[in-house]
């Protein structure tokens, strides 16, 4: 196995609370040493990280890789490539594929395709219910054996309180979280954006914040009833943040994620009927965005997840009502987080890395999120000061449905290493 030295970067490891200029020495796929003036065997490859940050590879608990079933929009290979280009060494793939990832076999397929792609690690999330129909529990045990790290009916909420209760109870056997897309469908059905003045002006049917908050409250109450671990996906409202704060104060086993678009944009982005501003949950109001930011700052929101949702351009080139929900996010997540959270002083850089790597690893019990000696060498080297424009042609995902095209972001991954292997190198220069 190759050896690799990452030389002279600012090494930040939230798992150990360390932050300082050092060399990182990788051997046999693992972190071998961190320090200064590490003695090298001749011929060891060197990554020059001067002026850059060296951190545990980013981990995204919430992506849609579209394979099987929607390979025209994304495949596991292109999604995993997009991930490493964004600095992610591991992503968790939601099960709303076709067929739904709801069995040992379909989970195994995702694992195999990811290994074949050889880019980011891809951890499948199995469906909670067969076919995501909200009726019968899937075989959690067999899916976990095949590689699933959590269960979710994402895209839809876990349909009934009874199903959520049984899922949380059953999931305890395997120590996995139940990740829920919180939406009361009886309030949300037909809605295409946040309910508020902009929706009223545009004549679009709104989704009230209450639709999310009712389900967040339900899930918190069921977490208390069952002792199970609820992971709340893509939180978008100030009410949800308050509910989670309350749940955590009670010591309940509740974790939550928020997306870069929800801490960056508001519903005003829907003006002009831009379908790249259509996602679910929808972009909310400035006060909601602020609550999400504060939640990330104080830890009420545990982590950042992209909800990477590729769609072929044809399907987004539609009337707003008809266009599908979601945007790609793997390659813009870091640049948005640095621009929106770190640059304004809301989050210190080590805390951001915690929220994008160490904490998500902990929540889903994944390897990674650490540069501890002996840990798998999943590492990102990024330039935290580079300003770069998001250009369609530079994205590695198969789809480019992003509301951030043309925007200037701050900070970008240069080298991404998975298991000691350089899987992405932005520069043309070879690793010396």
């Amino acid at each position, binding site marked *: 196995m190759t050896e690799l030295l990452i030389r002279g970067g600012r090494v930040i490891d939230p798992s150990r609370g360390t932050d300082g200029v050092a060399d990182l020495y990788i051997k046999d796929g693992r972190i071998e040493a961190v320090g200064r003036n590490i003695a090298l065997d001749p011929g060891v490859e060197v990554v020059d990280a001067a002026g850059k940050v060296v951190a545990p590879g980013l981990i995204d608990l919430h992506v849609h890789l579209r394979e099987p079933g929607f390979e025209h929009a994304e495949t596991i290979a292109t999604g995993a490539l997009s991930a490493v280009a964004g600095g992610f060494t591991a992503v968790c793939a939601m099960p709303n594929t076709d067929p739904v990832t709801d069995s040992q076999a379909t989970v195994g397929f995702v694992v195999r395709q990811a290994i074949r792609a050889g880019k980011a690690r891809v951890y499948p999330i199995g469906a909670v219910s067969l076919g995501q129909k909200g009726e019968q529990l899937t075989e959690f045990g067999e899916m976990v054996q095949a590689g699933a790290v959590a269960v979710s009916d994402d895209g839809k909420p876990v349909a009934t309180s009874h199903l959520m209760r049984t899922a949380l109870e059953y999931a305890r056997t395997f120590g996995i979280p139940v990740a829920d897309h919180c939406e009361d469908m009886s309030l949300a059905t037909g809605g295409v954006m946040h309910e*508020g*003045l902009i*929706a*009223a*002006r*545009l*004549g*679009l*049917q709104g989704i009230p914040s209450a639709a999310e908050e009712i389900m967040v409250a339900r899930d918190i109450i069921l977490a208390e009833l069952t002792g199970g671990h609820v992971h709340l996906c893509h939180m978008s409202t100030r009410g949800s943040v308050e509910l989670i704060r309350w749940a955590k104060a009670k010591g309940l086993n509740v974790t939550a994620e928020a997306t870069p678009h929800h801490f960056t944009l508001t519903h005003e982005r829907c003006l*002009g*009927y831009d379908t790249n501003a259509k996602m679910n949950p929808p972009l909310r109001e400035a006060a909601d965005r602020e609550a999400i930011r504060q939640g990330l700052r104080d830890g009420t929101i545990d982590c950042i997840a992209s909800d990477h949702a590729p769609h072929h351009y*044809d399907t987004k*080139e*539609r*009337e*707003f*009502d*008809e266009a599908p929900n979601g945007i790609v996010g793997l390659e813009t997540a870091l640049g948005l987080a640095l621009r929106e959270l770190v640059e304004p002083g809301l989050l210190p850089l080590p805390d951001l890395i915690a929220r994008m790597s160490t904490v998500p690893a902990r929540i889903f019990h994944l390897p990674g999120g650490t540069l501890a000696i002996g840990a798998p060498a999943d590492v990102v080297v990024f330039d935290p000061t580079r300003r770069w424009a998001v250009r369609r042609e530079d994205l590695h995902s198969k789809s480019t449905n992003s509301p951030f095209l043309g925007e200037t972001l701050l900070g970008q991954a240069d080298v991404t290493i998975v298991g000691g292997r350089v899987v992405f190198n932005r520069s043309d220069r070879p690793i010396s």
Partner: protein
Amino acid sequence: MSPPVLGKDLVGLEYLTADQILLILDTAEPFKEVSERPIKKVPALRGKTIVNLFFEASTRTRISFEFAEKRLSADTVNVATTGSSVSKGETLVDTARNLEAMRIDMVVIRHPSSGAAEFLGNRIRSNVINAGDGRHEHPTQALLDMLTLRDRFGRIAGLKVAICGDVLHSRVARSNIWGLLKLGAEVAICGPATLIPREFAELGVRIFPRIEEAIEWADALNVLRLQLERMSSGFIPSLREYNRVFGVTRERLAKAGREVVILHPGPMNRGVEIDSDVADGPASVILPQVTNGVAVRMAVLYLLAGGAPDWRSAPTPGDDR
């Protein structure tokens, strides 16, 4: 030809200035007379080709546009969704590109999705006129409403206009709110709380929960059609109760002690949102609205084609002389 005073498209009144709206109303004035002539035709749009693209059923608006186009001497084609490639699953953008490829000058579009007119306008070079997009806007309806109000009151500024009924689902309401506010009128909305978007208060629109209060306050009521499917979707319990609580009736109007002018964009549900003796009564301007519709649409077509504000003194667009 002068530069286009309205921009390329007419998508909604939200996007126009007060001056632009007044220009349309003023341009409509001389066009009223064309429809009163024995030979109802002027050459203003001779040689222009216009497609009326209707993705939703419409009688009044479609015919009104068609008359407006024909009285301006344009060549027109009507496309309805049934029996066209749309019913074969063609997307709006493909329909638009195909029309563009036939080198048409203008598209009048009616579509069930909010934003469809803007979507189309951003993708083709032809002028696009919104004849109603989902719940968003129906600008020519609001323009004809305002022209009718101006005929009756001599002004718009300072008028108190209450828009009554299903504002939530109404493109007519949204266009009227923008147009009237821009021209300095006071605007109120009134109806069951399930059909009244409270957010409009942020624009300076008054909200009356009871129709009696709206009548007491208003100089004119614009009574919206109540879509019958609102009952099945749970917004109101029954049409009977709607009429009892929110219906515009002669008895309620009599209590105002003064004339309250009645507008309705049609088609009416007599005995639901409006009683027949109100619709047919002396304060009703419902038929003058329809007459003004043709003039307003002539004005919009003419101005978007690049016509000068006074068509009688201007050369015909597309004319070689």
